[in-house]
């Protein structure tokens, strides 16, 4: 490979250009999938018996009577301009779904990711330090269990324990009705936790937090298993390196060697995997939201699928695709910034 290709701007540019075909493929696949789907979206959206004229009118209004290639152009053009279409079954745009349900999902995902990172990194480092001891086996078992347990089952177990048995926490929703209304009236970001802080309402804040604990813990546990495995393997690999041996030879304590020398270098792949987890997070969010009736975008997607609202489904899936591509781009850029070797390969 030529020397010049190693420069950072050039790498970033190449990476950015690669996004275009990726997005295009995803958009096209989504479009095609939605067109070959069984049943008539318009008929499904309007419900059972409607005169043909009404259906035709709606069909015309939505542009379903145009040739498929025109619809495709319309769709791509809309996405490029940030317009993801209208929800057929409700009088709102997909953009509106994103700014409302999307924010609920964001709140849930960010909290879950934080929980996963804290749990995953700490457990991973500890069991790598005590490799092949019972502690290691227990930690790895925990990692496998968090992965093996379906996220909705963990959610149900939490409901059995904390809701039914101990009655500590609420079982579903994002807030109680009263707080929900209050927060909807004084909405700023539509992220309930942030809005409660902006409004300075302590009761809203605690209520929202109580509702947030079980779902985010459930989703966080799902993802932390991946981090445990990854951190463990990477720390162990890094600990085999010569400079670790050198650090030990200099008489630095083992804990310090693991934390300061091993852990830091083992973190680079973790950054990449955080990005890869975005997809897992979205899948997990759909299940977690359904389990806890969390009014997020994943639950909205399932609802619209059940109602056969193809336009809404197409819009939401498009947004998911863009998120995934965007996050992977972001992660590549961050990795290139912190690890020069990536740029040269």
């Amino acid at each position, binding site marked *: 490979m030529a020397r010049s290709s190693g420069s950072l701007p050039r790498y970033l540019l190449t990476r950015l250009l690669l996004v275009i075909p*990726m997005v295009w493929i995803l958009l096209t696949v989504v479009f095609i999938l939605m067109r070959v*789907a069984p049943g008539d979206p318009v008929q499904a959206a309007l419900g059972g018996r409607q005169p043909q004229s009404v259906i035709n009118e709606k069909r015309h209004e939505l542009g379903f009577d145009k040739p498929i290639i025109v619809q495709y152009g319309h769709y791509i053009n809309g996405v490029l301009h940030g317009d993801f279409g209208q929800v057929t079954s409700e009088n709102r745009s997909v953009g509106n779904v994103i700014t409302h349900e999307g924010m609920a999902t964001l709140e849930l995902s960010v909290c879950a990711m934080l929980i996963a990172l804290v749990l995953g990194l700490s457990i991973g480092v500890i069991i790598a330090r005590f490799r092949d001891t019972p502690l290691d086996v227990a930690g790895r078992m925990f990692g496998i*269990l968090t992965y093996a*347990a379906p996220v*909705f089952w963990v959610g149900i177990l939490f409901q059995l324990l904390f809701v039914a048995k101990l009655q500590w926490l609420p079982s579903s929703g994002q807030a109680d009705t009263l707080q929900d209304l209050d927060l909807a009236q004084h909405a700023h970001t539509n992220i309930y936790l942030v809005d409660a802080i902006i409004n300075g309402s302590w009761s809203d804040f605690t209520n929202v937090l109580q509702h947030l604990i079980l779902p985010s813990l459930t989703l966080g546990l799902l993802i932390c298993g991946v981090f445990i495995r990854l951190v463990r393997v990477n720390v162990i690999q890094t600990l085999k390196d010569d400079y670790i041996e050198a650090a030990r030879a200099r008489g630095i304590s083992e804990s310090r060697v693991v934390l300061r020398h091993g852990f830091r270098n083992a973190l680079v792949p973790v950054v990449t995997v955080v990005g890869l987890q975005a997809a897992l997070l*979205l899948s997990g969010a*759909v299940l977690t939201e359904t389990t806890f009736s969390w009014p997020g975008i994943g639950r909205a997607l399932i609802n619209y699928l059940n109602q056969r609202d193809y336009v809404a489904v197409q819009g939401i899936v498009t947004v998911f695709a863009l998120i995934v*591509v965007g996050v992977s781009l972001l992660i590549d850029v961050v990795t290139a910034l912190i690890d020069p070797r990536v740029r040269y390969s």
Partner: protein
Amino acid sequence: MTSEFMVPTTSPAAEAAPSKGRRVRGIRRALAPIAEARGLPKWVLFIGIGIVLVFVVFAIFAPWISPYKFDQYLTTSGQRFPKSGAPSGSHWFGTNIMSTDVFSHIVYGARTALEVIVIAVVISLFVGVPLGLFSGYYGGPLDRMLVLVMDAMFAFPSLLLAILVAFLLRGKFGFLGASFSGIMAAAISITVIYIPQYFRVIRNSVISVRENPYVEAARVLGAKPRTVIAKYVFGNVVQNVPVIGTLNAADALLTLAGLGFLGYGVQPTEAAEWGYDLQRALGEASGGIWWTSVYPGLAIVLLVTGLTLVGESLNDLINPTLRRRQLLPIDRAEMAGEDEVVAGR
């Protein structure tokens, strides 16, 4: 030294004249690390195999093991089973909200799960591996196109992909007029997720294997591409397949359960499916009815754990970078690429 135990299946001499005896010897050499395994990894492998075998027995002998049929809700004297009845002598694990026996659902669920897993893994193997082989071996624009499509599919949230495909396959009309049984439809939806994984792993190892001198030698001797791929390349990339296969099987079960939980899996009239049972149990959880959710969930966790243990220990035993041996330090730079298989999942 390194390349020799990274590719344990073949030496060029052994492959040059592949008779049956040699092939058996080749397989035996590939499996040698498992036979040589001592201590923990071996136990982990055996525990995993044991767990899986229990479920295989459940699946095969379901009608004899299970006290009732999975959709049976009447006793032989025509009396209805209790609805959500607690565990008792006649219903060891209680009955669920559909008045069917929970234990019978566990046993018949194993059958559904294994059917779907086997079909899904086999189809994705038969599509993913050849695609990876040819794409990696020939390269060119087709390869680049395939990589782009597969990467896009891989990046997309897997469960959502499965939901979308399941959505397309079901319905009165079915996809393009074809109609599938629930189990087949679920398996195909899951297949879509795993094809890219086999493709990526196989393609990447083909690319490194095809540069080896013995492959070049075969080409120089005038072997046809088909022969080169079948005899020289395939044997050296195939050792990754059992590891990914078992790990994917575990993942496939979770996806199946996720589909079932969201109502896009196997229909309850066709077969017992644990994910669907959990969906029905969700509403009862906050009321404290635990037996309808705990047992099906445990079944999923056990089977997934079993499969994961098998896959993990195969990986530990077969993958030289993870194998612990009394050897001199290994050239890590050369192996870094090989380890991606592990870090990716």
